[in-house]
């Protein structure tokens, strides 16, 4: 039975962190730690002496992790990016799922694989959810701005809601733009003229 791994997950969002921890625990009883506050990241990671650090690829503090891979002394240098050692197929899969992993020099690739598989699966789900959330939010924003533009048109042209929307839609078609973009221009222009 190999000794337990110490895994650090850098993730600010508490719910997401819990989901990742659960996914990693399902595969084995490794020690999983979450760093939620990324100030002083290097110090916190050094204190935990992890075997693997997992970080969201879209997080800007990833560049701080890169710095850690360059520390000179063996004790100061806890991590090297795994892709330099393990197969690049794993690296590509990880990048597409939105996870980046840093491992201690000397960790066996066969021990890394199951951890990475669990992390990749979890990050893929999270990435998908985030994309959907963004799309929903954008649709909601569009809705709001279209409603405001309709309101402006109804008032200015003394027409009903349906006619106002028809005007927007025609302008959008004529200009080859999205209805929401035309609405945004109208709202912006109205703001300037006020």
């Amino acid at each position, binding site marked *: 039975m190999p000794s337990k791994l110490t895994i650090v997950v850098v993730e600010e969002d508490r719910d997401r962190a819990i989901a990742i921890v659960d996914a990693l625990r399902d595969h084995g009883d490794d020690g999983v730690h979450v760093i939620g506050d990324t100030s002083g990241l290097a110090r916190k990671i050094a204190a935990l002496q992890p075997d693997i650090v997992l970080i969201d*690829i879209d997080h*800007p503090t*990833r*560049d*701080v992790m*890169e710095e850690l*891979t360059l520390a000179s002394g063996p004790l100061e240098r806890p991590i090297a990016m795994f892709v330099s050692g393990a197969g690049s197929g794993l*690296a590509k899969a990880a990048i597409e799922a939105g996870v980046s992993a840093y491992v201690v020099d000397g960790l066996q690739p066969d021990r890394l694989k199951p951890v990475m598989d669990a992390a990749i699966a979890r990050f893929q789900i999270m990435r998908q959810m985030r994309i959907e959330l963004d799309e929903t939010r954008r649709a909601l924003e569009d809705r709001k701005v279209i409603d405001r533009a309709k309101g402006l048109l109804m008032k200015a042209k003394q027409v009903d809601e349906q006619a106002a929307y028809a005007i927007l839609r025609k302008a959008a078609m004529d200009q080859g733009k999205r209805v929401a973009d035309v609405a945004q221009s109208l709202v912006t222009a109205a703001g300037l003229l006020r």
Partner: protein
Amino acid sequence: MKTTSISVAYMPLVDAAPLIVGQEMGFAEAEGLDLELIPAPSWSSVRDMLAFGRVDVAHLLSVVPVAMALGLGGVTNAMSAVSVLSVNGNVIGVSRGLEAKLRALGHPFDFADARAAGTALAKVAQGGLTIGVPFPFSMHVELLHVWRASTPLATVPLEIRTVPPPMMAQALASGEIDAFCVGEPWGSVSVENGDGALLLPGRAIWSFAPEKVLATRADWAETEPHLVGRLMRTVWRAGRWLADPSSRTAAAELLSRPRWLDVPAEVVDRALTGELAISQGGEIRDVPGFLEFHQGAANFPWRSQGKWIASRLAHRMGLDPQEAARAASGVFRSDLYRSALEGTGADMPGASEKLEGALRHPTAVASERGEMILERNVFFDGRIFDPSA
């Protein structure tokens, strides 16, 4: 011409302008290209997207492809720098606390004299200095080391710490760092927020420092020479447009859009015109050539630039200098640049290497069209780098 779509990773910075303008102003379209510009949250992310094939081209720190060739950092796939996208454009800034001490000392904040600024800063920071930079492999780090080596700062314990640019102002405000070296608009943003004052532009240390490059995977550059060529011409034309003073208002408006940098046009304008507000009091300093996209054959990827970077990295990381120079010699692709830009009217020097730091004044040199003018190229301490030494 059939339009080909190319994915390009970039960091949202003012010096990504040649790619953004290339797409928005139709220079890409004229070459039959459609640039799918993908913003990245970090430089490691840009590098990985390029190295693992998520994108074919990237706006990249000039030092990164050389570091990769030397086997430094986690990812070491072979990269080519096919054009320089921008020269200069960094600023060094200090916290409000250090600003007050420097003013008490009578430092004039002339934003020009690197030696005087280094001497003054060393006096007020005897306990040690922590300086934030965007990435461990960057011109920011190299400039700081050049600056430090020839000023009393050499006696001050210095820690260089990686801080993502959007967090730089916050790190300065919270005292996590005492100073920074960063690209625009982030220096100006920290001035706007009232967290710091600007001490020096990067060009006060090296007046012609290649800052960002157009990078591709070395194998992609070999297998897709025509696409790379079309891209190189796109950014060259975009750079020429950007260098025209009459384009600046439009460029600032364009870059300031939420889709691109999402900062006020007035802040973007400072980097483009070289008129920087260095403190919250609104002191303006005029820096000609603050950020160069075109003048003086700015886009030409000199092999000597790649070698200078390699020699600095070798020195700092304890590598064999000769071996490093050899490994890095093919990263800056002046050969591809020559063949791609032929016939565009681009300035093309006769040589592909030069002494870095040896031009005290703008100088006419031999070129294919007769004569071309190279801009002033000096280090503040007068050092000269000979690439063949």
